[in-house]
């Protein structure tokens, strides 16, 4: 790989206007895509450098495929611009873009054999001939099509590259999934694109084949030196293959960083939870370099938080070191709850001051034993909480009755009807019911993260407000549940008359 392909650390959107000439082969600027009133991709900006292997990673429906399709030209952004080598290609049709796509289900033409599938693009291409000077003294460049021999040479070369040398005459339907995959890659690569787009290309393959193809794709990337943009929901695939990972969720980019950074320094609890196993705990930042969680005070390397600011702490299971409980390194003592062999390590679940932690170690531990845990200050990843209390602006329905997301809730407030109020509800005061009918209002669980001794889930109500809820149960993502709030737990504050335009902000907070 070329030296300059090494990605920079965490990227921020450059707002400078003069960055047109740069190493960026593809730039998305505030790109937004709306389908039927729903935002599939929210104002996203992304720079991709020449020769990079960039992966768009996220759960299904996070907008990663839509982003890729906008780069390919199959979708036009609702707003925002896309640049290719500094040139605006937002309105360029796909056939004029110098990118090629490997489709999720390959999309090999069933009426053509392998050779003709691969030759499809070549037969359409026009190549510039030697410029010559015509009778009137003008320099003219004529275009011609590839000759049959040239096409055959190119197709044979690319077939050799994907190890399908003798398959040219074969019908595509007679190939196995892995072979079809190779043909799809060959069909895209034979056109020598500057950027290759891959839309979950390995999704349909079995595990073994997928691993092999991962290595092969990576090798191809190294050999060809072109830019790969890869879409996947498999975090392991993303981390092993990419130079740069873009984590997306609900149409928003959560983090852009190298795989190591994504893993070690996730930008938020979602990224941490999505990228592999991790312990996510609620804590309090006492002062600079001092954090408290699990009823214990730890040293850390973070600063700049407010005093006593509630934060989330993320610890990777393999960053714990098991020591003797009476050792002076034992920052935390814990009781082993279970120990499971995972092939190359043991996954040990321990209970430390009522918090459940997952620890990975190469040595087995006996259930019920007390162990000591050591964590390097560097391995404590501290993140600001997205929110510490549910807060929403609404109005009174009548005395003692307040409107929350379309439901009427009893509360201890005698403000008259129509008064604009700010309602606050603590995370653990929101009651979730299994049946949407049992709740005053209903919503869909969009996220659930285990935080040591409780789950924090986010429930999106029908009018798009995200309720943060701390519960003892793990609610299934995508389930529709009901929400109840006890009368005493609703804090109502009267608002002055400046509500209208701030409401937007509240919704965007998440």
């Amino acid at each position, binding site marked *: 790989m070329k030296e300059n392909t090494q990605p920079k650390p965490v990227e921020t959107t450059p707002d400078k206007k003069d960055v047109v000439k740069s190493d960026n082969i593809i730039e998305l600027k505030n790109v937004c895509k709306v389908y039927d009133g729903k935002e599939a991709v929210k104002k996203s900006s992304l720079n991709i450098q020449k020769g990079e292997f960039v992966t768009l990673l996220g759960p299904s429906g996070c907008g990663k495929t839509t982003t890729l399709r906008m780069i*390919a*030209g*199959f979708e036009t952004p609702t707003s925002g611009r896309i640049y290719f080598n500094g040139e605006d290609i937002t309105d360029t*049709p*796909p*056939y004029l873009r110098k*990118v*090629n*796509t490997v*489709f999720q*289900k390959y*999309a*090999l*033409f*069933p*009426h*053509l*054999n392998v050779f*003709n599938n691969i030759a*499809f*693009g070549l037969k*359409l*291409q026009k190549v510039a001939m030697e410029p010559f000077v015509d009778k009137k003294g003008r320099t003219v460049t004529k275009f011609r099509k590839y000759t049959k021999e040239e096409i055959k040479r190119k197709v044979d070369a690319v077939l050799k590259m994907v190890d399908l040398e003798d398959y040219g005459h074969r*019908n595509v339907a007679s190939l196995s999934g892995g072979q079809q995959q190779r043909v799809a890659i060959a*069909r*895209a690569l034979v*056109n020598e694109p500057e950027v290759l787009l891959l839309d979950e290309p390995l999704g349909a393959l079995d595990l073994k084949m997928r691993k092999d193809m991962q290595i092969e794709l990576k090798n191809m990337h190294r050999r060809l030196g072109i830019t790969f943009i890869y879409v996947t929901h498999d975090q392991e695939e993303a981390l092993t293959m990419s130079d740069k990972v873009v984590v997306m969720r609900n149409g928003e980019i959560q983090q852009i960083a190298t795989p190591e950074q994504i893993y070690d320094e996730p930008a938020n609890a979602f990224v941490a939870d999505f990228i592999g196993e991790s312990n996510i705990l609620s804590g309090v930042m006492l002062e600079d370099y001092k954090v408290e969680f699990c009823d214990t005070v730890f040293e850390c390397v973070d600063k700049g938080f407010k005093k006593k600011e509630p934060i989330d702490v993320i610890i990777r299971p393999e960053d714990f070191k098991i020591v003797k409980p009476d050792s002076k390194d034992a920052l935390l003592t814990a009781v082993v709850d279970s120990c499971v062999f995972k092939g190359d390590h043991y996954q040990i679940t321990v209970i430390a001051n009522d918090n459940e932690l997952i620890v990975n170690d190469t040595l087995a531990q006996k259930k019920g034993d007390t162990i000591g845990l050591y964590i390097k200050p560097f391995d404590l990843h501290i993140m600001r909480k997205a929110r510490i209390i549910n807060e929403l602006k609404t109005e009174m329905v009548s005395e003692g009755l307040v409107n929350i997301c379309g439901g009427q809730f009893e509360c201890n407030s005698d403000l008259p009807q129509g008064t604009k109020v700010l309602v606050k509800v603590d995370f653990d005061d929101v009651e979730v019911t299994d049946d949407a009918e049992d709740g005053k209002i209903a919503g869909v669980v969009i996220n659930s993260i285990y935080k040591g001794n409780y789950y924090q889930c986010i429930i999106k109500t029908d009018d798009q407000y995200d309720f943060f809820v701390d519960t003892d149960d793990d609610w299934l993502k995508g389930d529709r549940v009901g929400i109840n709030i006890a009368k005493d737990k609703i804090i109502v504050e009267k608002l002055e008359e400046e509500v209208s335009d701030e409401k937007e902000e509240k919704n965007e907070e998440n």
Partner: protein
Amino acid sequence: MKKIKPFFLSKKVFGYPYVLFMLIFVIMPLVLILVNAFLDTDGYLTLENFKTFFTEKSSLVVLGNSLLVGLITTVICLLIGYPVAYILSKYSSGKILVLLFILPMWVNFLIRTLATKAVFVAMGVELGMGTVIFGMVYNYLPFMILPLHTVISSIDKSYIEAAEDLGADKSNVFLKTILPLSVSGIISGITMVFIPTISTYAISQLLSNGTIFLFGDSIQMKFEQGLYGVGSIMSIVMLIFVLISNFLMNKFSNNMQRRTIW
């Protein structure tokens, strides 16, 4: 006591009515035609009917005419039907258009043809070959559109995207993916139009004031005149043509799947 197998439980029973139907209305007429072909008017075995048909110049001309009309109708139907089917599958607003094409099918074809004739007469158009072909196209166009529409709208969008991705502009996308992928629809459309048109009758008589005789018309006439033998021979000849065209279509569509068009 003897165990009685419930009558309704045996699945075979449901097939009997169809077998009976086939025997009476499909096999028997065919056998009758075949037998009639070898009988003269007095009921004696003869080969005279064949001689009559194949030496009579007029009946061969009629056959040629029928094939020609069938061919022209099919080509026109294809030329009109394909763009229509394509537009229908591409735009949701095409539903109204499809209704307009299907609507005439709800009217009995004789009434429809008589109405067409009345329109032509009122407009002062001379009835002849042109009006006959118009009537044919008008009657059989839906049979071309429907199979084409089904096939074109079932083409996976990803093929079109893949073609665009590989550098095909709109016309190349059409010529190199949509057209070859809709060949099966074209073939069944042709089959559904060509075969009925070569055997149709009444349309030609009505729309040409009886001046143009097609094969179907002359079979009808032979039977009306009591010439069952010659009529049967003509029916068999037509059957053979239908079988040949069917065979060719099948062969063509099989080849299509294996070979490339370009």
